[in-house]
């Protein structure tokens, strides 16, 4: 059983925003809505690090826990999705999310908060897979086409990985072994738990 995860290798991420733009392109999200962002720590100083962040599709998702309308569901592959028809745009999920993933497009002319929008792991939503309806509400459903999230597939340095947790952690593990450092992973514990099996072994590198 595939368990879909994202993983960003900060040793490779160069803050090029390819992921952010690939997402905008694939789902045609409007101005002001970025399902994915690139965050920089220590900008302009030695040790500067960047990582790409979106919904981490948590194993124990806080958004899901707090949603008053219970509009979230988790697919068999571990992708956290929601039904926009139920969403009331209350923003509670935004407060709960440790990664700031939920976004609220402006709706109407008075700046009301629209229905929540977030990364779908390119898996659409509860509408018919590949339908226009699904595309308009949630963007393209690549998983149903046998493809993986475009942000990771287009990553300029293959820093951002997406797919089956076992597969991508193996890819990452190989790199970490070669460099002999950088085994720590941003946000992995936060999203997937400290005892999650796929966390790569520490290589005694920087912390």
């Amino acid at each position, binding site marked *: 059983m595939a*368990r879909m995860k994202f993983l960003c290798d900060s040793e490779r991420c160069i803050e090029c925003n390819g992921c952010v733009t690939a997402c905008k392109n694939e789902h045609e999200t409007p101005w002001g809505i970025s399902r994915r962002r690139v965050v920089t720590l220590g900008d302009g100083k030695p040790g500067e690090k960047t990582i790409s962040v979106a919904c981490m599709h948590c*194993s124990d998702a806080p958004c899901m826990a707090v949603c008053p309308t219970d509009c979230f569901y988790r*697919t068999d592959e571990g992708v956290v999705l929601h*039904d926009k028809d*139920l969403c009331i745009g209350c923003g509670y999920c935004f407060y709960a999310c440790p990664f700031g993933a939920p976004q609220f497009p402006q709706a109407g002319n008075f700046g009301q908060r629209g229905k929540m929008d977030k990364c779908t792991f390119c898996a659409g939503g509860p509408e018919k897979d590949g339908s226009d309806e699904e595309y308009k509400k949630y963007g393209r459903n690549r998983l149903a086409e046998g493809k*993986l999230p475009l942000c990771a597939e287009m990553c300029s340095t293959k820093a951002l990985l*997406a797919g089956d947790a076992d597969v991508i952690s193996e*890819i990452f593990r190989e790199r970490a072994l070669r460099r002999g450092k950088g085994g720590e992973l941003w946000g992995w514990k936060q999203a997937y738990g400290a005892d*999650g099996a796929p966390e790569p072994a520490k290589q005694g590198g920087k912390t």
Partner: protein
Amino acid sequence: MKTLALLLAATAVLAACSERPQSVGDYRGKTDAKPYEANFGGDKAKWEAALRARNQNQNEYKRAE
């Protein structure tokens, strides 16, 4: 002791998918189709194989040592 044994058993069962039991409100929205239905004729194994193969495109070591 008994509790510990139970815990260990639970861990063993769930370890494979690194899943932890959770209790949240039940989803109340529309039912989503399985991702392998629309384009893979419901053949889950075929879909998973396709994704697994595609995943290796993110690993340039497959093409350059």
